Protein backbone atom coordinates (compact mmCIF):
# COMPACT_ATOMS: atom_id res chain seq x y z
CA UNK A 1 0.00 0.00 0.00
CA UNK A 2 1.41 3.35 -0.99
CA UNK A 3 1.84 5.87 1.80
CA UNK A 4 -0.49 8.39 0.15
CA UNK A 5 -3.22 5.73 0.12
CA UNK A 6 -3.04 5.09 3.87
CA UNK A 7 -5.80 6.67 5.92
CA UNK A 8 -5.31 4.91 9.25
CA UNK A 9 -2.11 3.57 10.67
CA UNK A 10 -1.52 2.00 14.08
CA UNK A 11 1.96 1.29 15.41
CA UNK A 12 2.29 -0.93 18.45
CA UNK A 13 -0.97 0.31 19.93
CA UNK A 14 -1.88 -1.05 23.33
CA UNK A 15 -4.76 -0.01 25.53
CA UNK A 16 -5.23 -1.09 29.12
CA UNK A 17 -8.27 -0.26 31.19
CA UNK A 18 -7.84 0.28 34.89
CA UNK A 19 -10.62 0.18 37.42
CA UNK A 20 -10.30 -0.35 41.18
CA UNK A 21 -6.70 -1.53 40.85
CA UNK A 22 -7.85 -4.08 38.27
CA UNK A 23 -6.11 -3.91 34.91
CA UNK A 24 -7.72 -5.35 31.79
CA UNK A 25 -6.52 -5.41 28.21
CA UNK A 26 -8.47 -3.51 25.57
CA UNK A 27 -6.06 -4.15 22.71
CA UNK A 28 -2.45 -5.24 22.72
CA UNK A 29 0.39 -4.36 20.37
CA UNK A 30 -1.72 -3.66 17.31
CA UNK A 31 0.06 -2.84 14.05
CA UNK A 32 -2.25 -2.00 11.22
CA UNK A 33 -2.58 0.08 8.09
CA UNK A 34 -5.84 0.70 6.31
CA UNK A 35 -6.06 2.57 3.05
CA UNK A 36 -8.38 4.00 0.43
CA UNK A 37 -10.64 1.67 -1.57
CA UNK A 38 -10.57 -0.94 1.16
CA UNK A 39 -13.21 -2.51 3.39
CA UNK A 40 -11.55 -3.95 6.46
CA UNK A 41 -13.56 -6.34 8.59
CA UNK A 42 -12.64 -6.63 12.26
CA UNK A 43 -14.02 -9.93 13.42
CA UNK A 44 -14.06 -11.32 16.90
CA UNK A 45 -16.25 -12.24 19.83
CA UNK A 46 -17.64 -9.75 22.33
CA UNK A 47 -14.88 -8.19 24.41
CA UNK A 48 -12.20 -9.00 21.85
CA UNK A 49 -11.26 -5.32 21.45
CA UNK A 50 -13.06 -4.43 18.18
CA UNK A 51 -14.86 -1.40 19.60
CA UNK A 52 -11.75 -0.32 21.51
CA UNK A 53 -9.85 -0.36 18.24
CA UNK A 54 -12.50 1.81 16.51
CA UNK A 55 -12.49 4.38 19.33
CA UNK A 56 -8.68 4.49 19.28
CA UNK A 57 -8.74 5.18 15.53
CA UNK A 58 -11.08 8.15 16.02
CA UNK A 59 -9.05 9.60 18.87
CA UNK A 60 -11.98 9.29 21.28
CA UNK A 61 -9.76 7.01 23.33
CA UNK A 62 -6.06 7.49 23.92
CA UNK A 63 -3.74 4.49 23.67
CA UNK A 64 -1.74 3.46 26.73
CA UNK A 65 1.23 3.04 24.40
CA UNK A 66 1.88 3.12 20.67
CA UNK A 67 0.84 5.61 18.04
CA UNK A 68 -2.32 6.13 16.00
CA UNK A 69 -2.01 8.03 12.73
CA UNK A 70 -4.94 9.51 10.87
CA UNK A 71 -3.96 11.00 7.50
CA UNK A 72 -0.33 10.56 8.58
CA UNK A 73 -0.87 12.73 11.64
CA UNK A 74 -0.28 11.37 15.10
CA UNK A 75 -3.69 11.98 16.63
CA UNK A 76 -2.33 12.37 20.16
CA UNK A 77 -0.63 15.50 18.83
CA UNK A 78 -3.78 16.93 17.27
CA UNK A 79 -5.65 19.49 19.37
CA UNK A 80 -9.04 18.29 20.65
CA UNK A 81 -10.84 20.99 18.67
CA UNK A 82 -9.03 20.09 15.44
CA UNK A 83 -9.67 16.40 16.03
CA UNK A 84 -13.37 17.12 16.49
CA UNK A 85 -13.41 19.06 13.21
CA UNK A 86 -11.47 16.27 11.51
CA UNK A 87 -14.16 13.79 12.62
CA UNK A 88 -16.87 16.14 11.37
CA UNK A 89 -15.26 16.55 7.94
CA UNK A 90 -13.49 13.27 7.22
CA UNK A 91 -15.03 10.49 9.30
CA UNK A 92 -18.45 8.84 9.17
CA UNK A 93 -19.92 6.61 11.88
CA UNK A 94 -22.45 3.79 11.81
CA UNK A 95 -23.61 2.22 15.05
CA UNK A 96 -25.34 -1.03 15.92
CA UNK A 97 -28.39 0.78 17.32
CA UNK A 98 -28.22 3.40 14.54
CA UNK A 99 -28.18 6.24 17.07
CA UNK A 100 -30.25 8.61 15.01
CA UNK A 101 -31.56 11.59 16.92
CA UNK A 102 -35.13 10.50 17.47
CA UNK A 103 -36.64 13.96 17.86
CA UNK A 104 -35.35 15.00 14.42
CA UNK A 105 -36.67 13.95 11.04
CA UNK A 106 -34.66 11.73 8.71
CA UNK A 107 -33.47 14.67 6.64
CA UNK A 108 -32.59 16.74 9.74
CA UNK A 109 -30.39 13.90 11.00
CA UNK A 110 -28.38 14.10 7.78
CA UNK A 111 -28.34 17.89 7.75
CA UNK A 112 -26.92 17.93 11.26
CA UNK A 113 -23.63 16.26 10.28
CA UNK A 114 -23.35 18.54 7.25
CA UNK A 115 -23.60 21.48 9.65
CA UNK A 116 -20.86 19.97 11.80
CA UNK A 117 -18.72 19.73 8.66
CA UNK A 118 -19.38 23.46 8.18
CA UNK A 119 -20.84 23.12 4.70
CA UNK A 120 -22.77 25.99 3.20
CA UNK A 121 -26.42 26.19 4.24
CA UNK A 122 -27.58 26.21 0.65
CA UNK A 123 -25.73 23.01 -0.11
CA UNK A 124 -26.81 21.21 3.06
CA UNK A 125 -30.50 20.73 2.13
CA UNK A 126 -29.66 19.73 -1.47
CA UNK A 127 -27.05 17.22 -0.36
CA UNK A 128 -29.34 15.71 2.29
CA UNK A 129 -32.22 15.37 -0.20
CA UNK A 130 -29.94 13.79 -2.82
CA UNK A 131 -28.73 11.21 -0.31
CA UNK A 132 -32.26 10.31 0.73
CA UNK A 133 -33.18 9.88 -2.94
CA UNK A 134 -30.11 7.74 -3.49
CA UNK A 135 -31.15 5.44 -0.62
CA UNK A 136 -34.80 5.37 -1.67
CA UNK A 137 -35.85 7.27 1.43
CA UNK A 138 -37.22 10.42 -0.19
CA UNK A 139 -40.76 9.72 1.04
CA UNK A 140 -39.49 9.42 4.60
CA UNK A 141 -37.47 12.63 4.58
CA UNK A 142 -39.78 14.55 6.87
CA UNK A 143 -40.83 11.65 9.06
CA UNK A 144 -39.55 11.53 12.59
CA UNK A 145 -36.64 9.12 12.70
CA UNK A 146 -38.22 7.47 15.74
CA UNK A 147 -41.09 6.28 13.54
CA UNK A 148 -38.87 4.56 10.96
CA UNK A 149 -38.40 0.79 10.74
CA UNK A 150 -35.05 -0.76 11.74
CA UNK A 151 -33.99 -1.14 8.11
CA UNK A 152 -34.99 2.43 7.26
CA UNK A 153 -33.13 3.73 10.29
CA UNK A 154 -29.94 1.97 9.29
CA UNK A 155 -30.19 3.30 5.74
CA UNK A 156 -30.58 6.83 7.13
CA UNK A 157 -27.61 6.10 9.39
CA UNK A 158 -25.52 5.04 6.37
CA UNK A 159 -26.64 8.14 4.48
CA UNK A 160 -25.62 10.23 7.49
CA UNK A 161 -22.21 8.52 7.65
CA UNK A 162 -21.35 9.25 4.03
CA UNK A 163 -23.07 12.67 3.87
CA UNK A 164 -19.84 14.60 4.42
CA UNK A 165 -18.12 12.48 1.75
CA UNK A 166 -16.06 10.92 4.54
CA UNK A 167 -12.78 9.29 3.59
CA UNK A 168 -13.10 6.97 6.55
CA UNK A 169 -16.23 5.12 7.67
CA UNK A 170 -16.24 3.34 11.00
CA UNK A 171 -19.09 0.90 11.42
CA UNK A 172 -19.60 -0.81 14.75
CA UNK A 173 -21.80 -3.93 14.38
CA UNK A 174 -23.80 -2.28 11.58
CA UNK A 175 -25.85 -5.40 10.82
CA UNK A 176 -26.45 -6.69 14.35
CA UNK A 177 -29.91 -5.15 14.71
CA UNK A 178 -31.03 -6.02 11.17
CA UNK A 179 -32.59 -8.98 9.41
CA UNK A 180 -30.28 -10.85 7.02
CA UNK A 181 -31.58 -9.18 3.86
CA UNK A 182 -31.35 -5.68 5.33
CA UNK A 183 -27.94 -6.45 6.83
CA UNK A 184 -26.57 -7.59 3.49
CA UNK A 185 -27.96 -4.50 1.82
CA UNK A 186 -26.12 -2.29 4.29
CA UNK A 187 -22.80 -4.11 3.87
CA UNK A 188 -23.20 -3.94 0.08
CA UNK A 189 -23.67 -0.18 0.35
CA UNK A 190 -20.52 0.13 2.42
CA UNK A 191 -18.58 -2.15 0.08
CA UNK A 192 -19.63 -0.06 -2.91
CA UNK A 193 -18.69 3.11 -1.06
CA UNK A 194 -15.20 1.77 -0.43
CA UNK A 195 -14.66 0.39 -3.93
CA UNK A 196 -16.45 2.85 -6.20
CA UNK A 197 -15.64 6.01 -4.24
CA UNK A 198 -12.15 4.91 -3.22
CA UNK A 199 -12.86 5.33 0.50
CA UNK A 200 -11.75 3.47 3.59
CA UNK A 201 -14.35 1.47 5.51
CA UNK A 202 -13.65 -0.36 8.76
CA UNK A 203 -16.40 -2.64 10.01
CA UNK A 204 -16.30 -4.20 13.47
CA UNK A 205 -18.57 -7.22 13.70
CA UNK A 206 -18.93 -10.75 14.94
CA UNK A 207 -21.12 -11.58 11.91
CA UNK A 208 -19.22 -14.07 9.73
CA UNK A 209 -21.67 -13.52 6.85
CA UNK A 210 -19.89 -10.23 6.14
CA UNK A 211 -16.59 -11.87 5.22
CA UNK A 212 -17.52 -12.15 1.53
CA UNK A 213 -17.66 -8.37 1.25
CA UNK A 214 -14.37 -7.66 3.01
CA UNK A 215 -11.13 -6.86 1.22
CA UNK A 216 -9.29 -7.82 4.34
CA UNK A 217 -10.27 -9.52 7.57
CA UNK A 218 -8.60 -9.23 10.93
CA UNK A 219 -9.59 -11.59 13.67
CA UNK A 220 -9.22 -10.26 17.18
CA UNK A 221 -9.24 -12.19 20.38
CA UNK A 222 -8.51 -10.86 23.87
CA UNK A 223 -7.29 -7.64 22.29
CA UNK A 224 -4.74 -9.21 20.00
CA UNK A 225 -4.73 -9.86 16.27
CA UNK A 226 -4.55 -13.59 16.03
CA UNK A 227 -5.22 -13.95 12.33
CA UNK A 228 -5.19 -11.64 9.34
CA UNK A 229 -6.83 -12.79 6.14
CA UNK A 230 -5.99 -12.86 3.21
CA UNK A 231 -2.53 -11.56 4.19
CA UNK A 232 -1.16 -12.78 7.49
CA UNK A 233 1.65 -10.30 7.32
CA UNK A 234 0.20 -6.84 7.15
CA UNK A 235 3.42 -5.40 5.83
CA UNK A 236 2.87 -7.31 2.61
CA UNK A 237 -0.43 -5.71 1.81
CA UNK A 238 0.87 -3.61 -1.11
Amino acid sequence: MKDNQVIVSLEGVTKFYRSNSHKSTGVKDINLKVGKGELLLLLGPSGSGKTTLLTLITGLLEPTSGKVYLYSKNISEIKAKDLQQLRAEKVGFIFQTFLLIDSLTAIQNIELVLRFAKLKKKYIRTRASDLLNQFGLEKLAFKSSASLSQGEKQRVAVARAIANDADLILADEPTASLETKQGMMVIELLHDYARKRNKCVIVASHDLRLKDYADRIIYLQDGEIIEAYPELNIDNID
Partner: protein
Amino acid sequence: MYSFVIIKSQPVRLSLTIGAVALCIIMMLFLLGIYKGVADGSVEYIKKNNADLWVLQKNCTNILRGTSLLSSWQGNLIMEDPGVESVSPVLFLLSSVKNGKNHSTIFLTGYNPENRYGGPPALVKGRNIKNGSEIVLDIAFALKSGFRINDSLTIQDETFKVVGFSKGTNAFVIQYAFTTIDKTRSLIGFPGLTTCYIVKLKDGVNRESVKRDLMKNISGSTVYTQEEFLSNNIHEMQSGFLPVLYAVASLGAVVLTVILSLILSISILEKKKDFAVMKTLGASAEFLSSLVVKQAVLIILAAGAAAIILYYPIVFGIHSLSPEVSTANTFLQVLFVMLVAICMGLLSSFIAIQRIRKIYALEVFYER
Protein backbone atom coordinates in the same frame (compact mmCIF):
# COMPACT_ATOMS: atom_id res chain seq x y z
CA MET B 1 -33.75 23.79 14.82
CA TYR B 2 -32.70 21.12 17.31
CA SER B 3 -33.00 23.41 20.33
CA PHE B 4 -36.61 24.17 19.38
CA VAL B 5 -37.26 20.46 18.81
CA ILE B 6 -35.85 19.63 22.27
CA ILE B 7 -38.01 22.11 24.16
CA LYS B 8 -41.22 21.33 22.31
CA SER B 9 -40.79 17.60 22.82
CA GLN B 10 -42.08 18.01 26.41
CA PRO B 11 -45.06 20.39 26.04
CA VAL B 12 -46.34 20.07 29.63
CA ARG B 13 -42.93 20.68 31.12
CA LEU B 14 -42.35 23.53 28.69
CA SER B 15 -45.66 25.17 29.69
CA LEU B 16 -44.86 24.81 33.40
CA THR B 17 -41.37 26.22 32.89
CA ILE B 18 -42.65 29.16 30.88
CA GLY B 19 -45.33 29.73 33.54
CA ALA B 20 -42.83 29.66 36.40
CA VAL B 21 -40.37 31.95 34.63
CA ALA B 22 -43.24 34.28 33.63
CA LEU B 23 -44.30 34.50 37.29
CA CYS B 24 -40.75 35.44 38.29
CA ILE B 25 -40.77 38.16 35.61
CA ILE B 26 -44.21 39.35 36.78
CA MET B 27 -42.90 39.51 40.35
CA MET B 28 -39.92 41.62 39.29
CA LEU B 29 -42.15 43.90 37.21
CA PHE B 30 -44.60 44.21 40.09
CA LEU B 31 -41.93 45.10 42.64
CA LEU B 32 -40.41 47.70 40.35
CA GLY B 33 -43.93 48.98 39.65
CA ILE B 34 -44.58 49.31 43.37
CA TYR B 35 -41.29 51.13 43.79
CA LYS B 36 -42.17 53.60 41.07
CA GLY B 37 -45.73 53.94 42.39
CA VAL B 38 -44.50 54.56 45.92
CA ALA B 39 -41.70 56.83 44.75
CA ASP B 40 -44.18 58.95 42.83
CA GLY B 41 -46.91 58.81 45.49
CA SER B 42 -44.64 59.64 48.40
CA VAL B 43 -43.24 62.82 46.98
CA GLU B 44 -46.12 63.94 44.76
CA TYR B 45 -47.40 66.08 47.64
CA ILE B 46 -44.07 67.90 47.88
CA LYS B 47 -43.72 68.22 44.10
CA LYS B 48 -47.19 69.68 43.60
CA ASN B 49 -46.81 72.26 46.37
CA ASN B 50 -43.94 73.74 44.40
CA ALA B 51 -42.68 75.87 47.29
CA ASP B 52 -39.66 78.12 47.07
CA LEU B 53 -38.51 77.14 50.55
CA TRP B 54 -39.47 74.59 53.20
CA VAL B 55 -38.77 75.45 56.83
CA LEU B 56 -38.56 72.60 59.36
CA GLN B 57 -37.18 72.02 62.82
CA LYS B 58 -33.40 71.93 62.98
CA ASN B 59 -31.87 68.58 61.96
CA CYS B 60 -35.12 67.35 60.39
CA THR B 61 -34.54 66.52 56.73
CA ASN B 62 -37.88 65.14 55.52
CA ILE B 63 -41.54 64.70 56.31
CA LEU B 64 -41.77 60.98 55.55
CA ARG B 65 -39.69 59.71 58.44
CA GLY B 66 -38.79 62.69 60.58
CA THR B 67 -40.21 64.70 63.45
CA SER B 68 -40.39 68.45 63.12
CA LEU B 69 -42.06 70.70 65.67
CA LEU B 70 -42.18 74.45 65.07
CA SER B 71 -44.17 77.27 66.70
CA SER B 72 -46.24 80.02 65.25
CA TRP B 73 -43.70 82.67 66.29
CA GLN B 74 -41.26 81.12 63.86
CA GLY B 75 -43.88 81.50 61.13
CA ASN B 76 -44.29 85.17 62.06
CA LEU B 77 -40.53 85.70 61.89
CA ILE B 78 -40.40 84.13 58.41
CA MET B 79 -43.16 86.48 57.26
CA GLU B 80 -41.09 89.45 58.42
CA ASP B 81 -38.40 88.72 55.83
CA PRO B 82 -38.79 91.31 53.03
CA GLY B 83 -38.35 88.70 50.29
CA VAL B 84 -41.19 86.45 51.52
CA GLU B 85 -44.57 86.68 49.84
CA SER B 86 -46.50 84.02 51.80
CA VAL B 87 -45.97 81.52 54.61
CA SER B 88 -48.26 78.49 54.87
CA PRO B 89 -48.11 76.34 58.01
CA VAL B 90 -48.70 72.61 57.70
CA LEU B 91 -49.11 70.13 60.54
CA PHE B 92 -48.78 66.40 59.90
CA LEU B 93 -50.32 64.02 62.40
CA LEU B 94 -50.46 60.23 62.37
CA SER B 95 -54.08 59.65 63.30
CA SER B 96 -56.33 56.70 63.87
CA VAL B 97 -59.54 56.80 61.86
CA LYS B 98 -62.59 55.03 63.23
CA ASN B 99 -64.99 53.57 60.70
CA GLY B 100 -67.59 51.60 62.59
CA LYS B 101 -65.58 48.94 64.44
CA ASN B 102 -62.55 49.28 62.21
CA HIS B 103 -59.50 51.43 62.86
CA SER B 104 -56.99 52.53 60.28
CA THR B 105 -54.16 55.03 60.29
CA ILE B 106 -53.81 58.11 58.11
CA PHE B 107 -51.29 60.89 57.70
CA LEU B 108 -53.60 63.73 58.67
CA THR B 109 -52.41 66.95 57.07
CA GLY B 110 -53.64 70.20 58.56
CA TYR B 111 -53.38 73.22 56.29
CA ASN B 112 -55.08 76.52 55.69
CA PRO B 113 -57.69 75.99 52.92
CA GLU B 114 -57.73 79.70 52.17
CA ASN B 115 -54.10 79.37 51.14
CA ARG B 116 -53.00 77.56 47.94
CA TYR B 117 -50.25 75.61 49.70
CA GLY B 118 -50.24 72.44 51.81
CA GLY B 119 -53.50 70.96 50.53
CA PRO B 120 -54.17 67.89 48.35
CA PRO B 121 -52.15 67.95 45.10
CA ALA B 122 -55.17 66.89 43.01
CA LEU B 123 -58.76 65.83 43.58
CA VAL B 124 -60.28 62.88 41.73
CA LYS B 125 -63.76 63.25 43.20
CA GLY B 126 -65.71 65.73 45.30
CA ARG B 127 -64.39 69.11 46.42
CA ASN B 128 -61.82 70.59 48.78
CA ILE B 129 -62.52 71.25 52.46
CA LYS B 130 -64.12 74.47 53.55
CA ASN B 131 -63.94 74.06 57.33
CA GLY B 132 -62.59 71.86 60.11
CA SER B 133 -65.53 69.47 60.12
CA GLU B 134 -64.67 68.30 56.60
CA ILE B 135 -61.96 65.99 55.37
CA VAL B 136 -60.45 64.97 52.03
CA LEU B 137 -59.19 61.37 51.89
CA ASP B 138 -56.65 59.72 49.64
CA ILE B 139 -58.58 57.73 47.02
CA ALA B 140 -56.73 54.46 47.76
CA PHE B 141 -57.46 54.85 51.47
CA ALA B 142 -61.13 55.59 50.74
CA LEU B 143 -61.46 52.53 48.48
CA LYS B 144 -59.65 50.29 50.98
CA SER B 145 -61.74 51.50 53.93
CA GLY B 146 -65.00 51.75 52.00
CA PHE B 147 -65.55 55.50 52.43
CA ARG B 148 -67.76 57.39 50.03
CA ILE B 149 -68.39 61.11 49.57
CA ASN B 150 -70.64 62.49 52.38
CA ASP B 151 -69.75 59.57 54.69
CA SER B 152 -68.69 60.41 58.22
CA LEU B 153 -65.62 59.25 60.07
CA THR B 154 -64.22 59.79 63.55
CA ILE B 155 -60.73 60.89 64.58
CA GLN B 156 -60.19 61.20 68.33
CA ASP B 157 -63.92 61.61 69.02
CA GLU B 158 -64.19 64.37 66.39
CA THR B 159 -66.50 63.66 63.49
CA PHE B 160 -65.55 64.64 59.95
CA LYS B 161 -67.58 64.62 56.77
CA VAL B 162 -65.82 63.19 53.71
CA VAL B 163 -66.05 65.81 50.96
CA GLY B 164 -63.42 64.74 48.44
CA PHE B 165 -60.87 62.17 47.34
CA SER B 166 -57.31 63.08 46.41
CA LYS B 167 -54.66 61.40 44.27
CA GLY B 168 -50.88 61.54 44.46
CA THR B 169 -51.26 61.11 48.22
CA ASN B 170 -50.57 57.39 48.62
CA ALA B 171 -47.22 56.59 50.19
CA PHE B 172 -48.01 52.82 50.17
CA VAL B 173 -47.62 52.25 53.93
CA ILE B 174 -49.60 55.38 54.77
CA GLN B 175 -52.06 57.63 52.95
CA TYR B 176 -52.67 61.35 53.36
CA ALA B 177 -55.91 62.99 54.52
CA PHE B 178 -56.56 66.73 54.64
CA THR B 179 -58.42 69.01 57.01
CA THR B 180 -57.82 72.48 58.44
CA ILE B 181 -54.69 73.20 60.44
CA ASP B 182 -56.75 74.60 63.30
CA LYS B 183 -58.69 71.35 63.63
CA THR B 184 -55.46 69.34 63.46
CA ARG B 185 -53.90 71.50 66.17
CA SER B 186 -56.98 71.06 68.36
CA LEU B 187 -56.72 67.28 67.92
CA ILE B 188 -53.16 67.27 69.27
CA GLY B 189 -53.90 69.91 71.86
CA PHE B 190 -51.10 72.37 71.06
CA PRO B 191 -52.26 75.62 69.49
CA GLY B 192 -49.72 77.12 67.09
CA LEU B 193 -47.91 73.82 66.59
CA THR B 194 -46.59 73.35 63.05
CA THR B 195 -44.56 70.66 61.30
CA CYS B 196 -43.24 72.85 58.55
CA TYR B 197 -43.75 76.14 56.78
CA ILE B 198 -44.18 76.33 53.02
CA VAL B 199 -42.62 79.59 51.90
CA LYS B 200 -43.27 81.41 48.62
CA LEU B 201 -40.98 84.29 47.69
CA LYS B 202 -41.69 87.47 45.84
CA ASP B 203 -40.80 87.58 42.16
CA GLY B 204 -37.12 88.30 41.44
CA VAL B 205 -35.95 87.65 44.97
CA ASN B 206 -32.74 85.68 45.36
CA ARG B 207 -33.76 82.36 46.91
CA GLU B 208 -30.36 81.46 48.33
CA SER B 209 -30.05 84.81 50.00
CA VAL B 210 -33.46 84.49 51.71
CA LYS B 211 -32.57 80.93 52.72
CA ARG B 212 -29.36 82.19 54.39
CA ASP B 213 -31.24 84.99 56.17
CA LEU B 214 -33.92 82.65 57.51
CA MET B 215 -31.33 80.11 58.71
CA LYS B 216 -29.54 82.92 60.54
CA ASN B 217 -32.55 84.67 62.02
CA ILE B 218 -34.87 81.79 63.01
CA SER B 219 -33.30 79.72 65.72
CA GLY B 220 -34.06 76.00 65.95
CA SER B 221 -35.02 75.71 62.30
CA THR B 222 -33.56 74.56 59.04
CA VAL B 223 -34.43 75.76 55.54
CA TYR B 224 -34.46 73.78 52.30
CA THR B 225 -35.08 74.77 48.73
CA GLN B 226 -37.81 72.82 46.89
CA GLU B 227 -35.19 70.71 45.10
CA GLU B 228 -33.24 69.94 48.27
CA PHE B 229 -36.38 68.99 50.18
CA LEU B 230 -37.66 66.81 47.34
CA SER B 231 -34.30 65.09 47.08
CA ASN B 232 -34.20 64.51 50.88
CA ASN B 233 -37.61 62.87 50.83
CA ILE B 234 -36.83 60.71 47.79
CA HIS B 235 -33.60 59.61 49.45
CA GLU B 236 -35.43 58.78 52.68
CA MET B 237 -38.03 56.76 50.84
CA GLN B 238 -35.39 54.95 48.77
CA SER B 239 -33.14 54.14 51.69
CA GLY B 240 -35.97 52.71 53.73
CA PHE B 241 -37.99 50.97 51.07
CA LEU B 242 -35.87 50.28 48.04
CA PRO B 243 -33.43 47.73 49.55
CA VAL B 244 -36.35 45.53 50.57
CA LEU B 245 -37.84 45.67 47.08
CA TYR B 246 -34.49 45.02 45.45
CA ALA B 247 -33.86 42.09 47.78
CA VAL B 248 -37.20 40.50 46.89
CA ALA B 249 -36.78 41.27 43.17
CA SER B 250 -33.29 39.73 43.29
CA LEU B 251 -34.81 36.69 44.92
CA GLY B 252 -37.17 36.49 41.94
CA ALA B 253 -34.21 36.60 39.58
CA VAL B 254 -32.43 33.87 41.57
CA VAL B 255 -35.55 31.67 41.54
CA LEU B 256 -35.80 32.21 37.77
CA THR B 257 -32.16 31.15 37.34
CA VAL B 258 -32.57 28.08 39.54
CA ILE B 259 -35.75 26.93 37.78
CA LEU B 260 -34.30 27.42 34.34
CA SER B 261 -30.92 25.83 35.04
CA LEU B 262 -32.69 22.86 36.62
CA ILE B 263 -34.98 22.39 33.62
CA LEU B 264 -32.13 22.81 31.14
CA SER B 265 -29.96 20.36 33.08
CA ILE B 266 -32.77 17.78 33.15
CA SER B 267 -33.27 18.29 29.43
CA ILE B 268 -29.55 17.69 28.81
CA LEU B 269 -29.57 14.55 30.94
CA GLU B 270 -32.62 13.24 29.10
CA LYS B 271 -30.90 13.89 25.77
CA LYS B 272 -27.55 12.60 27.02
CA LYS B 273 -27.39 9.97 24.27
CA ASP B 274 -28.09 12.59 21.58
CA PHE B 275 -25.38 14.87 22.94
CA ALA B 276 -22.91 11.96 23.00
CA VAL B 277 -23.81 11.07 19.40
CA MET B 278 -23.34 14.67 18.28
CA LYS B 279 -19.98 14.82 20.04
CA THR B 280 -18.88 11.65 18.23
CA LEU B 281 -20.08 12.99 14.89
CA GLY B 282 -17.93 16.08 15.35
CA ALA B 283 -20.24 18.69 16.87
CA SER B 284 -18.21 21.55 18.28
CA ALA B 285 -18.49 22.58 21.92
CA GLU B 286 -19.85 25.92 20.68
CA PHE B 287 -22.62 24.18 18.74
CA LEU B 288 -23.65 22.04 21.70
CA SER B 289 -23.56 25.04 24.06
CA SER B 290 -25.58 27.09 21.61
CA LEU B 291 -28.35 24.47 21.74
CA VAL B 292 -28.74 25.09 25.47
CA VAL B 293 -28.40 28.87 25.19
CA LYS B 294 -31.03 28.97 22.43
CA GLN B 295 -33.40 26.91 24.58
CA ALA B 296 -32.91 29.33 27.48
CA VAL B 297 -33.50 32.36 25.27
CA LEU B 298 -36.59 30.80 23.67
CA ILE B 299 -38.04 30.04 27.11
CA ILE B 300 -37.24 33.54 28.41
CA LEU B 301 -38.80 35.21 25.35
CA ALA B 302 -41.96 33.09 25.60
CA ALA B 303 -42.13 33.69 29.36
CA GLY B 304 -41.49 37.41 28.86
CA ALA B 305 -44.34 37.65 26.36
CA ALA B 306 -46.63 35.68 28.69
CA ALA B 307 -45.60 37.92 31.62
CA ILE B 308 -46.37 41.11 29.74
CA ILE B 309 -49.76 39.78 28.63
CA LEU B 310 -50.65 38.57 32.14
CA TYR B 311 -49.10 41.42 34.12
CA TYR B 312 -51.78 44.07 33.68
CA PRO B 313 -54.77 41.79 34.45
CA ILE B 314 -52.92 40.52 37.55
CA VAL B 315 -52.11 44.06 38.70
CA PHE B 316 -55.73 45.06 38.08
CA GLY B 317 -56.82 42.18 40.30
CA ILE B 318 -54.37 43.19 43.04
CA HIS B 319 -55.55 46.82 42.85
CA SER B 320 -59.13 45.63 43.23
CA LEU B 321 -58.23 43.71 46.37
CA SER B 322 -55.74 46.24 47.81
CA PRO B 323 -56.28 49.72 46.36
CA GLU B 324 -53.42 51.17 48.43
CA VAL B 325 -50.95 49.10 46.39
CA SER B 326 -50.16 51.59 43.69
CA THR B 327 -47.93 50.52 40.83
CA ALA B 328 -46.46 52.50 38.00
CA ASN B 329 -44.46 50.79 35.27
CA THR B 330 -42.45 52.48 32.59
CA PHE B 331 -41.25 51.07 29.27
CA LEU B 332 -37.69 51.29 30.57
CA GLN B 333 -38.61 49.16 33.58
CA VAL B 334 -40.12 46.48 31.34
CA LEU B 335 -37.00 46.60 29.17
CA PHE B 336 -34.79 46.39 32.25
CA VAL B 337 -36.65 43.37 33.64
CA MET B 338 -36.50 41.62 30.26
CA LEU B 339 -32.76 42.27 30.06
CA VAL B 340 -32.30 40.92 33.59
CA ALA B 341 -34.37 37.85 32.66
CA ILE B 342 -32.26 37.27 29.54
CA CYS B 343 -29.06 37.64 31.58
CA MET B 344 -30.40 35.17 34.15
CA GLY B 345 -31.38 32.86 31.27
CA LEU B 346 -27.83 33.01 29.93
CA LEU B 347 -26.48 32.33 33.42
CA SER B 348 -28.86 29.34 33.72
CA SER B 349 -27.68 27.98 30.39
CA PHE B 350 -24.06 28.47 31.47
CA ILE B 351 -24.74 26.39 34.60
CA ALA B 352 -26.53 23.71 32.56
CA ILE B 353 -23.79 23.64 29.90
CA GLN B 354 -21.39 22.28 32.52
CA ARG B 355 -23.41 19.04 32.28
CA ILE B 356 -22.44 18.63 28.62
CA ARG B 357 -18.77 18.43 29.58
CA LYS B 358 -19.54 15.31 31.57
CA ILE B 359 -21.06 13.58 28.55
CA TYR B 360 -18.46 11.49 26.76
CA ALA B 361 -18.57 10.72 23.06
CA LEU B 362 -17.24 7.28 23.86
CA GLU B 363 -20.54 6.35 25.51
CA VAL B 364 -22.20 5.83 22.12
CA PHE B 365 -19.97 2.89 21.29
CA TYR B 366 -21.21 1.03 24.31
CA GLU B 367 -24.87 1.81 23.60
CA ARG B 368 -26.48 -1.54 22.87
